């Protein structure tokens, strides 16, 4: 016999899917929304996305060189962090802000923990949280209206995002000292928010918001691709969005069961968060049951922040908080083994 035989452990065949294919599938799935962001908010959006991505990749390369680890920027995970961070920024932020956010995301939330696979928190969300804490003005006031619509998606009010309007309306309705005029005005805003014209704007993305979060339809196209390819599964997004729908229906109106869940599902960063950030495999549970608990937890937190918290939106913080619980969830939701008798 001539050549030397290769001896490796079984199995001797493997599925084609590898780390790169997983990561670039996610990148591909984000592209429709990126194009949407540029369409609605102009070239600024593109500059922010590119700046955040390049900064994330460069930071990963520099950090890995510095600690003498193999440079793994080609795996695509830093690129995803950059894109997702940009997606979570208002279109009007100064151009250095995404750069700072990406550097922080990679250098603080990813590399020190051991890089891809070992970070407990989603790096992009950590980056965003850092920016929100450090430059709250940029992060909460630099909204820009979409090129062919208004910031709120309705005509009565144009100075706030849809969730901002909702927060304002709730503030008025919950305040016992306001007069009847104000109440009726607030109710008319609400009626407009819940109108089909407004919902259509939300669905298409023709409203103000973060660069990558506004267009539900474009996000769903990307999500469908990942679901079909088996890169993400339905458990987290469905339980997350389902929980928000249920809770905002029960608690989101004046009196129980008077909320308008469709508005909450379509607005803000919920769809982006549920399909692309809560499903970040590294920072979410591996067990089927765990995924559902994780999604429900995110949904409860998001609903509570939106309805009762100080911010109009709570998707990022909800996911970050739930990230912390993942080891615990995984430990207590191990599947029943085949042939295992529980309690014996």
């Amino acid at each position, binding site marked *: *016999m*001539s*050549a*030397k*035989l*290769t*001896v*490796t*452990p*079984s*199995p*001797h*065949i*493997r*599925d084609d*899917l*590898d*780390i790169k*294919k*997983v990561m670039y599938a996610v990148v591909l799935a984000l592209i429709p929304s990126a194009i949407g962001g540029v369409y609605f908010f102009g070239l600024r959006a593109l500059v922010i996305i590119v700046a955040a991505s390049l900064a994330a990749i460069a930071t990963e390369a520099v950090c890995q060189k510095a600690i003498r680890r193999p440079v793994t920027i080609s*795996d695509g995970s830093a690129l995803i962090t950059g894109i997702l961070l940009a997606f979570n920024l208002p279109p009007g932020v100064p151009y250095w802000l995404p750069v700072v956010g990406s550097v922080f995301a990679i250098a603080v939330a990813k590399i020190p923990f*051991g*890089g*891809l*696979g*070992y970070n407990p928190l989603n790096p992009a969300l950590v980056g965003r949280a850092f920016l929100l804490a450090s430059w709250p003005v940029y992060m909460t006031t630099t909204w820009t209206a979409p090129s062919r619509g208004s910031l709120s998606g309705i005509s009565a009010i144009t100075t706030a995002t849809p969730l901002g309007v909702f927060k304002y309306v709730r503030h008025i309705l919950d305040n016992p000292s306001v007069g009847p005029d104000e109440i009726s005005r607030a109710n008319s805003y609400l009626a407009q928010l819940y109108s089909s014209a407004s919902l259509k704007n939300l669905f298409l993305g023709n409203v103000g918001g973060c660069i990558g979060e506004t267009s539900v339809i474009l996000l769903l196209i990307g999500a469908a691709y990942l679901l079909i390819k*088996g*890169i993400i*599964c339905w458990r987290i997004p469905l339980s997350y969005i389902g929980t928000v729908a249920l809770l905002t229906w029960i608690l989101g109106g004046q009196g129980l069961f008077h909320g308008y869940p469709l508005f909450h599902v379509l607005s803000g960063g919920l769809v982006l968060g549920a399909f692309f950030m809560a499903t970040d*495999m*590294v*920072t*979410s*549970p*591996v*067990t*089927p049951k765990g*995924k559902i608990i994780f999604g429900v937890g995110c949904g409860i937190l998001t609903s509570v922040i939106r309805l009762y918290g100080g911010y109009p939106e709570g998707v990022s913080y909800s996911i970050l908080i739930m990230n912390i619980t993942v080891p615990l969830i*995984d430990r207590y939701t*191990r*599947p*029943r*083994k*085949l*042939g*295992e*008798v529980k309690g014996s």
Partner: protein
Amino acid sequence: MAKTFRGGVHPPEAKLTASKPIETIAQPDRVIIPLSQHTGAPSKPTVKVGEEVLIGSKIGEAEGFISVPTHSSVSGKVKAIANYPHPLGRPMPAIEIENDSRDEWIDLSHWTDLTNSSPDEIRRAVREAGIVGLGGAAFPTHVKLSPPEGKTIDTVILNGAECEPYLTGDHRLMLEHPDEIIEGLRVIMKVLGAARGYIGIERNKPDAIDKMSEKVEDEESIEVVGLKVKYPQGAEKQLIKALTGREVPCGGLPMDVGCLVQNVGTSYAIWQALKLGKPLIERVVTVSGSAVKSPGNYMVRIGTTFSHVIEQAGGMDEGCSKIIMGGPMMGIAQHTDQVPVVKGTSGMILLSAQDVRIDEPGPCLRCGKCVDHCPMRLVPNEIARFVEKGRIAEAEAYGILDCMECGVCAYVCPSKINHVHLFKIGKAEIAQRRRKEAGKEG
């Protein structure tokens, strides 16, 4: 919907040889017959160097209950008793016999059909014939036919799933020897007093399903069931779950839920032993893969070297860079083609360089694919991590001992982590610790 279990995968089936009838190959000049080809104690040589033997002569005696005798597969002269390469890894004691090419059997002219004898007589005959499970695990069959006092077996399952890619030997046997296989099943059922018999076949073998169904048409107690094409459909616990809905308890055996599973090839061997008195001296081996010239299903004498079988199958391509004994999911990569075919050799897969993967394992992405697909419903990513960190107690608590090393987790893993390799290390470590503890107490 076809019956199945939860989890598993569907790798490319690559059944290149499904339509190739079983061919008998030219005999080798010599055979190397290992004394250990089965789970349990190796047999002890009963012949001396220089002694003449015939086909079917006993050359090794069983040592203890979980053991079987060994027989010569050729007629000729014992050349040596020494350590030889073994397909399971390290060299092991074996008997080398020079073939005199006379092809002379031991005298079977006075053999009387034992298929209707008493259970005890059948068990003894099955053991004397050296029969072990031919699916690959090679567990002595008479042990399985002897459930301890108090265990009743009501269901016997013949495994014709053949879920490993490439392998087609069982498929061909079912097409070419259906009556013998079914007769074998009847005997097993009778020995155990089992009222129900199933023959489970994956649906990618419709001709075998038809053939076998036709043969048991008038039989109330035996049912042929088409199974979903999914690996590892032929694993004992998964097969039982699919066919009966019963779950073998963790750490338990099929008999704990009243079941017994035998490979269709084993059933055929049982029939041959009882009806004709022939001990197990040959088996069907699928020779397949991208680097073999004429892939096929071959009837091969036990002890024939891989190199001879491959030569008979037209030889291997220049570029052959991996030889696997068994299927590609659970088979064992060989260092050399000088290893002999043993009772558990269901196939020889020869792969050319472009089909041989050498993957560098990456970090676990926690994608959960291994968890979703594990047919035992374990959490392979965590167990692998525990083993890597030397946290063996935790690996055990997470069920490493329930793992059957089917390789599904590693197959689906995008990070190409070598789960099975790690699990073998972890299990060996647990076994070692237990031995130590037992030693301390004793």
